[in-house]
């Protein structure tokens, strides 16, 4: 046993290894990415398979197949990834599993990664699968191991949920040596009543079994004491039900509330580690013991609704403080102020309003800081080319729909480009574009997507456009890496950077096979050619695909690869700032009499030189 500083993601990864997991899959997505990243940087262990899969559905099916073969498997994803995988999750929930099968999903209350504040606990409720959720980084290491055991005990996949504040927090964790994968002979079990849904009798039996497995889970969870109930000696006080990360604020909250006369020994506390199934027995004990209940859970009131149901069933008449009475919001993260405020409301204790109200006026003075592309990003050339192509066409910028997609390519929505109009979900740019055409838009429609996103969910949609002959231009911005989440390799990553034993799948070979009408490959650092190609496509009929190909500058720079050297000729510069206006490049600054290019940031793409009218910037 040793103490190390780990993130929640790392603690989860090490816990899965300690539990003997053999197959670990996932698709990168903030805040879950760190779990597999950690594992992939460790020495390769024989008989263990770890991979970034093409998308979350594929990742989950691989993990489920391994589990059906009797092995322990983990599948990691962010909340939106679970939406992708969920079709298979429901079906495999019905079948159950053999080896321990854990679906790790990371939610993002506070939306720090700019996605929906989706509460994935709702998916556990809908699929009748148990879900475990730790309250801290240290607990994550232990609880993930419990998840594998529980999964095998009941023969069902288990959800394991973290929120950003735990997944990305660093804290001290006591860990043991990782174990090699459990030595198990693979199972080949042929049983259509378990592994198919051929007929209503099979499906309904499986549905019954699924519900029975959840009931068994509830029993085992109680036996193992995963939800910790602490009762005040005297009855009649306040009962607090806290779940996940909200639990970690209790002690601090009790300290503060004690200054206002609240005695922590009068409080009963239920620390919930299983948002599904609800620990209803423990809740019932609280009904008998407490005159009021305070429920602390971030985002949706899932536990609270369960408590209301139980309260109705058992005729509990005490107050229930949470979100449904209006005390707390369903939006954003919790901190200690929620604990203190909740106790104040529940116990009618006067806690000053401004106790946790800092000076918020200051923030209004802060400059807007829209996120932008890195210096040298090849997407910069593509967005500039789209803008120039539209400018050179007979259309105005507000007449040409440019749909957007997930990843770094979405940064085209921000200044100075203002190119991309929308952002929905992986691969959605291509379907949306078709909808605009069918919706009657007769001006050119352009879809933009990155390489990993195209592999993930763009291909079926492009096939649809070809089959239905929808006139549109798809621009695939291929920088060779899954960059936004920290440079993971994807199917299109160059051969030399594929993990050992992998084969590259080249987008330039996929597109012609899909029988599109026109296909062009361009270099986004060649602004003139890229612009001319896009402009041509805007006026051609049919499905046109432009593959804008140039490696992610961050990755290339790590290998000291640079496309050129750019320098300023100060006497030619009149500070017109066109270079900044068009590129928004972080390497360019305004000096006294001339613009300045920071040589430590500049990648030498030369796009600034392309837009300079006075030859004040030169690329060599």
């Amino acid at each position, binding site marked *: 046993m040793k*103490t190390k*500083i780990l993130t929640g993601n790392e603690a989860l990864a090490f816990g899965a290894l300690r539990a003997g997991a053999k197959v670990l899959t996932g698709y990168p997505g*903030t805040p879950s990415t760190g779990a597999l990243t950690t594992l992939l940087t460790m020495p390769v262990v024989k008989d263990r398979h770890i991979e970034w899969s093409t998308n979350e559905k594929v990742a989950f099916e691989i993990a489920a197949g391994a589990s059906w073969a009797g092995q322990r498997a983990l599948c990691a994803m962010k909340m939106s990834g679970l939406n992708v995988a969920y079709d298979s999750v429901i079906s495999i929930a019905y079948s159950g599993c053999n080896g321990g099968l854990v679906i790790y999903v990371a939610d993002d209350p506070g939306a*720090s*990664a*700019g996605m929906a504040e989706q509460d994935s606990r709702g998916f556990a409720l809908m699929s009748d699968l148990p879900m475990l959720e730790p309250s*801290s*980084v240290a607990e994550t290491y232990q609880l993930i191991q419990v998840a594998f055991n529980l999964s095998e005990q009941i023969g069902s996949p288990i959800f394991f949920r973290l929120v950003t*504040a*735990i997944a*990305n*927090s*660093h*804290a*001290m964790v006591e860990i043991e040596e990782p174990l090699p994968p459990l030595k198990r002979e693979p199972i080949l079990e042929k049983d259509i009543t378990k592994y198919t849904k051929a007929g209503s009798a099979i499906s309904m039996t499986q549905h019954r079994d699924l519900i029975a497995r959840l009931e068994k889970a509830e029993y085992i969870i109680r036996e193992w004491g995963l939800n910790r109930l602490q009762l005040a000696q005297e009855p009649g006080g306040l009962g607090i039900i806290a779940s996940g*990360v*909200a639990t*970690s*604020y*209790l*002690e*601090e909250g009790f300290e503060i509330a004690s200054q206002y006369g609240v005695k922590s020994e009068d409080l009963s506390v239920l620390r919930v580690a299983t948002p599904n199934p609800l620990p209803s027995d423990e809740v019932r004990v609280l009904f008998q013991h407490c005159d009021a209940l305070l429920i602390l859970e971030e985002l949706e009131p899932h536990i609270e609704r369960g408590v209301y149901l139980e309260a109705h069933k058992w005729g509990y008449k005490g107050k229930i403080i949470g979100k449904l009475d209006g005390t707390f919001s369903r939006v954003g*993260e*919790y*901190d*200690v*102020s929620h604990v203190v405020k909740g106790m104040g409301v529940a116990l009618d204790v006067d806690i000053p309003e*401004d*106790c*946790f*109200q*800092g*000076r*918020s*006026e*200051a*923030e209004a*003075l*802060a*400059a*807007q*800081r*829209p*996120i*932008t592309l*890195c*210096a040298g990003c090849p997407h910069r050339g593509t967005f500039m080319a789209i803008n120039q192509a539209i400018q050179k066409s007979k259309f105005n910028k507000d007449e040409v729909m440019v749909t957007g997609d997930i990843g770094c390519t979405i*940064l085209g929505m921000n*200044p*100075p480009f203002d190119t991309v109009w929308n952002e929905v979900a992986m691969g959605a740019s291509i379907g949306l574009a078709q909808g605009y055409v069918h919706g009657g838009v007769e001006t050119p429609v352009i879809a933009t997507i990155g390489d990993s996103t195209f592999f993930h969910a763009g291909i079926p949609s492009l096939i649809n456009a070809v089959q239905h002959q929808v006139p549109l231009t798809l621009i695939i911005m291929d920088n060779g890496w899954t960059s*936004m989440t920290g440079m993971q390799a994807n199917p299109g990553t160059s051969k030399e950077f594929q993990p050992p034993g992998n084969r590259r799948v080249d987008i330039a070979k996929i597109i012609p096979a899909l029988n599109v009408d026109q296909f062009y490959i361009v270099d986004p650092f060649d602004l003139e050619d890229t612009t001319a190609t896009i402009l041509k496509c805007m006026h051609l009929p049919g499905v046109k695909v432009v593959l804008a190909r140039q490696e992610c500058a*961050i990755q290339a720079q790590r290998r000291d690869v640079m496309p050129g050297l750019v320098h300023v000729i100060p006497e030619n510069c009149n500070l017109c*700032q066109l270079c*900044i*206006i068009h590129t*928004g490049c*972080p390497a360019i*600054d*305004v000096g006294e009499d001339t613009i300045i290019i920071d040589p430590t*940031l500049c990648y030498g793409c030369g796009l600034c030189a392309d837009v300079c009218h006075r030859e004040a910037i030169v690329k060599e």
Partner: protein
Amino acid sequence: MAMNYDIYLVGVGGQGVLTMSDILAEAALRKAIPVNVFPIKGMAQRGGFIKAQVRLGRKVTGPNIPEKGADLVVGMELSESLKAIRFIKPGKDFVLLGHLWLPTAVMLGKAPYPELDQVQEEVKAAGAHLLYLDPEEIPLHEGAPVPANIFVLGALLGHTKLGRIFDPREVSNIIRHRWKTGAKRNATAFQAGLEVSG
């Protein structure tokens, strides 16, 4: 350590804010002080808003510091510092490095940017004790400025209550072990921070 100590750091990507919180976490580990560090780095590789919350002392602690809850706020960039003001506990230390990292719109003169005295007034209005670090005080080493984050770490150890929790020599050792190259440069940065006139 009997007391709890909460630190709220803000800045922009590329300034080394997360490295500062990592170093503090390691210092805590070495002294067996319970610690939770919660970094948020947004989406951009460089130039985006960054924050890190370091909570020292509590065995069980939630990752987020409440408003008016931080014992120390560190602002590494003038404008971003404004976003941390609501987290300072009245009477506690607010360390402000006057670095400017101008967004494109500001550079083009299309958007406003706060003035130094505006930010200083806001910090004082929140009841904090302000320690202003002039970027001009960051020394040169072999002709190039030393890392600002190490300089500010030195200032935190030398001029705030953090210096009572961690021995500056311990932190200096951690920095030396972390980077094999540039040890002299980092030592210059740290020492200059320790001795800066606040």
